[in-house]
């Protein structure tokens, strides 16, 4: 990696996105620290998914600047370096897991010689071994979520954007997935993980609290607790939300 470790994997300034006349992202300025797991937390409908779609380059930007890995959002060169996982689990239900991974792996440009090994490795990482030749339509919710993550992890992306990857999963599986996320970050990848569940916030290196298209705070969990003088992150979020309501016109 040529870029220095201190450089941010992504940075935005005054980012504005409107959808159907409504302001969804209301002038966001932030950086994603490289090699860290950043949590994007906020209630449903606060703009998390739109921010993630904007990062991976499938959302039109109305104002502001957004740079990822030194390139503007939506640059074709980013397409093989980003991993993206959506809430609707965008995999083909009428294909087996292996067929899904082979297709997406080929699209991502993995060389033919490495494809089989990469698939085995990804399947092992996500504890999907033994399910390779089953149709994805027969998967349970947790298996489906991991099949979707497998596609996102396949090409060993530099930046992973994961939209609520652990929602509805059993606690053991959630713990294991968070371990995977931190292992990837230790290997140099940058992760942005969204959640609407506050108990996941504590697992992140860095946090961005979001509400109604704006950030309430962006700092490490420890810093947020110190600054708000609260004992847990749920209370911190509430304190920040009521404060922002008080100062807003």
């Amino acid at each position, binding site marked *: 990696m040529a870029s220095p470790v201190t450089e941010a994997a992504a940075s935005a300034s005054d980012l504005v996105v409107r959808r159907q006349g409504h302001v969804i992202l209301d002038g966001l300025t932030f950086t994603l620290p490289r090699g860290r797991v950043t949590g994007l937390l906020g209630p449903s409908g606060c703009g998390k998914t739109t921010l993630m779609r904007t990062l991976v380059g499938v959302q039109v930007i109305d104002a502001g600047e957004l740079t990822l890995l030194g390139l*503007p959002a939506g640059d074709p060169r980013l397409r093989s370096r980003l991993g993206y996982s959506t809430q609707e689990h965008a995999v083909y239900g009428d294909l087996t897991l292996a067929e899904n991974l082979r*297709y997406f792996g*080929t699209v991502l440009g993995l060389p033919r010689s490495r494809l089989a090994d990469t698939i085995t490795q990804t399947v092992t990482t996500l504890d999907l071994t033994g399910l390779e030749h089953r149709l994805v339509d027969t998967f349970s919710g947790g298996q489906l979520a991991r099949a979707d993550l497998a596609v996102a992890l396949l090409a060993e992306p530099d930046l992973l954007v994961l939209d609520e990857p652990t929602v509805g999963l059993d606690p053991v599986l959630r713990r294991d997935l968070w371990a995977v996320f931190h292992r990837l970050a230790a290997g140099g990848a940058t992760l942005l993980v969204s959640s609407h569940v506050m108990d996941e916030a504590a697992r992140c290196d860095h946090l961005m609290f979001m509400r109604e298209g704006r950030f309430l705070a962006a700092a490490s969990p420890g810093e947020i607790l110190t600054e708000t003088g609260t004992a847990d992150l749920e209370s911190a979020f509430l304190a920040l939300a009521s404060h922002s309501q008080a100062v807003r016109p």
Partner: protein
Amino acid sequence: MTAVAGEAPARARPVLTAPIRWRLTGATASRVLSQLRHDPRTVVMLVVVPSLLMVLLRYVLDNAFALNRFAPEFIGVFPFIIMFIITAVTTQRERARGTLERLMAMPLGKLDLLAGYAIAFGLVALVQVGVVLLISLTWLGVQLPGSVVPLLVVAVLDALLGMSLGLFASAFARTEFQAVQFMPAFVLPQALLCGIVVARDQMTDVLRWLSDVLPLSYAVDAMQRISAGAAWSGTVTRDIVVILGFTVAALAGGALTLRRRTQ
């Protein structure tokens, strides 16, 4: 090196930027065929239903002269209709399931995706038309003065035309249910005006003008001429150019609706 407000860089670029990449096109075609392979009931319907309808036609008409006249036209229309439906539904499903958005965030060109679909469904159409031709010419005793190969070629072109129109139409469908409803809306008027029900030169001016601008009219005309033994005439060439023109235009329209970036 940053995306500046209002510039919308992805939209400013031409629709089809990269040249076709065969590895990605091949992977897409084989993915579409694998999806079909896991759905044997659909495969059986794709291959068997047109032949069953042809058998039905044989007994409904119960007249060798009429059958020889209508059979080639139906062989051109079946794959058109069926490809329209399966493409409209499959593409709508890709949009609804999020796989299209995922692919658009990956290094897959729109042309790779469209050509992959065209190759996969073109092969299906070849099997479909091959079976219906075989049954018509042997069991049903359809007599064709002309040769079979041009008939097969035009029928597959008709199927690709149906595919490209289905792809285009799917962009306007919010649900699979709507996508299926486009079949009567897009296809049945063409079927009524294409010259099977009433010969085109017996229509009133307005209807004939309508018929003149609808692609299925040319598909049916080509099938009629080839099966009548006209071999390869200038009119058949014109028909084929029109069919190809509509196919390319609908694919380009379809490519426009495959947005990398949406509002």
